[in-house]
């Protein structure tokens, strides 16, 4: 064996010995899925921020077009309605027990019609892969109006001050799933959320069923009943595992056979409400949800 071959052999032995004791952690799958979920969350925040920027740009453009003696005539079916600045403050109280009038409209705000070419908001092709659509507007479900009806459900109750987050996603939580968020008017600018709801159907519902079963057997979770259906309230980590520390307060149940609903409250909002207030609000949201299909 010549010197080069000897070096190759010695090097191979050294490399093999160096990593011989290395084993991938048993929790690799969970860690990878947690990273994926964080990636999807970042994508969602980016999309919301882009939408906010575009709306902010659309307002002065619309104002310039429609104000002053030399202004261009309004575009038929104008896209912008209502005052641009929300007029009501946001209050989230842990002591709040008042019933919410679900027929009252959300706070006045700018609304954007995706069908109007004058809005300067580009339409987006629905996609199943968030990873390939970063930077585009996540409007997989289109204009949801007040945002309370989507994915085969109607959201009857939301905590005071929350409005639709003006975005929606499809299949980001498995096939077939739908999701959207509810935010304070201030959060429309920051891209943050207060409440997120995910609807699971078909394949996604089967996975949700497995999770629900596991959660209900987890001592860290609280079993609840939503219109007679067995659900669970738990604080979930980024890998969807029940956690005692700094998780996302979540309630999961089946609104009807084959249709699971998961309501998540942002840790920031939860902190303001406290543990009992958080659980109470999650239950109220859940009890206000009705299957529409």
């Amino acid at each position, binding site marked *: 064996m010549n*010197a*080069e071959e*000897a*070096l*190759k052999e*010695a*090097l*191979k*032995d*050294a*490399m*093999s*010995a*160096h*990593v011989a004791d*290395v*084993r*991938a*952690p048993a929790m*690799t*799958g969970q*860690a*990878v*899925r947690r*990273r*994926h979920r964080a*990636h999807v969350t970042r994508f969602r925040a980016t999309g919301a921020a882009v939408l906010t920027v575009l709306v902010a740009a659309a307002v002065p453009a619309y104002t310039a077009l429609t104000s002053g003696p030399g202004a261009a005539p309004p575009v038929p079916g104008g896209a912008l309605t209502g005052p641009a600045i929300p007029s009501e403050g946001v209050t989230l109280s842990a002591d709040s027990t008042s019933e919410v009038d679900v027929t009252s409209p959300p706070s006045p705000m700018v609304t954007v019609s995706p069908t109007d070419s004058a809005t300067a908001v580009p339409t987006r092709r629905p996609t199943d*892969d968030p*990873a390939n659509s970063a930077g585009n507007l996540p409007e997989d479900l289109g204009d949801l109006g007040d945002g309370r009806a989507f994915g085969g459900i109607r959201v009857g109750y939301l905590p005071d001050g929350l409005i639709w987050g003006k975005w929606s996603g499809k299949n980001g939580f*498995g*096939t077939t799933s739908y999701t959207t968020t509810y935010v304070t008017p201030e959060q429309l600018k920051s891209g943050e959320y207060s409440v997120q709801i995910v609807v699971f159907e078909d*394949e996604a519902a*089967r*996975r949700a069923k497995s999770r629900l079963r596991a959660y209900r057997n987890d001592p860290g979770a609280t079993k609840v009943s939503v219109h007679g259906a067995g659900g669970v309230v738990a604080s979930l980590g980024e890998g969807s595992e029940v956690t005692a520390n700094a998780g996302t307060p979540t309630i999961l149940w089946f609104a009807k056979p084959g249709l699971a609903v998961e309501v998540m409250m942002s840790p920031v909002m939860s902190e303001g409400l406290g543990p009992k207030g958080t659980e109470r609000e999650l239950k109220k949201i859940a009890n206000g949800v009705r299957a529409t299909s």
Partner: protein
Amino acid sequence: MTEEDEAAFDEFLAARSTALLRTAILVCGASAHDAEDLAQGALEKVYRHWPRIRHDNPEAYARRIVVNAAISRSRRRRVIQEITFARPPETAAPQSDPELKDLLIGELRRLPARMRAVVVLRYWEDLSETETAAMLGCSVGTVKSQAARGLARMRARMGARKGTSV
């Protein structure tokens, strides 16, 4: 993803995640902890596209991501490494096999990132020159020259140590 996709991904992890982590450690020249972070980042990309790639040699796809990520990470640390290892340490010649292995790993770490990747893929993964070139997105000629120069550099440094021969 469907349940079948998820189950297939778990099987893939069970079969290949350790090998990918080992490759990351060797190519990156980093600690197991850093390599773990790198490997998980790469696997997240695999997971993101899993339904599309699972039937098309996902292992090669994953390894390519790991290797390229390791090269990128190593390049960011190169300045520090070059300062730290500007001169060979004045250590005594190894007297036993374990010491020789440590010395070889130390020399491997000192190679430039891309050259180290070629050496690892060729002599630890046993990939052919063509496979290595495809993995790194370069020509077969580049693989040949990088491998030869990498071995020569290691041999020269080893030879500089009194009494060391391999």
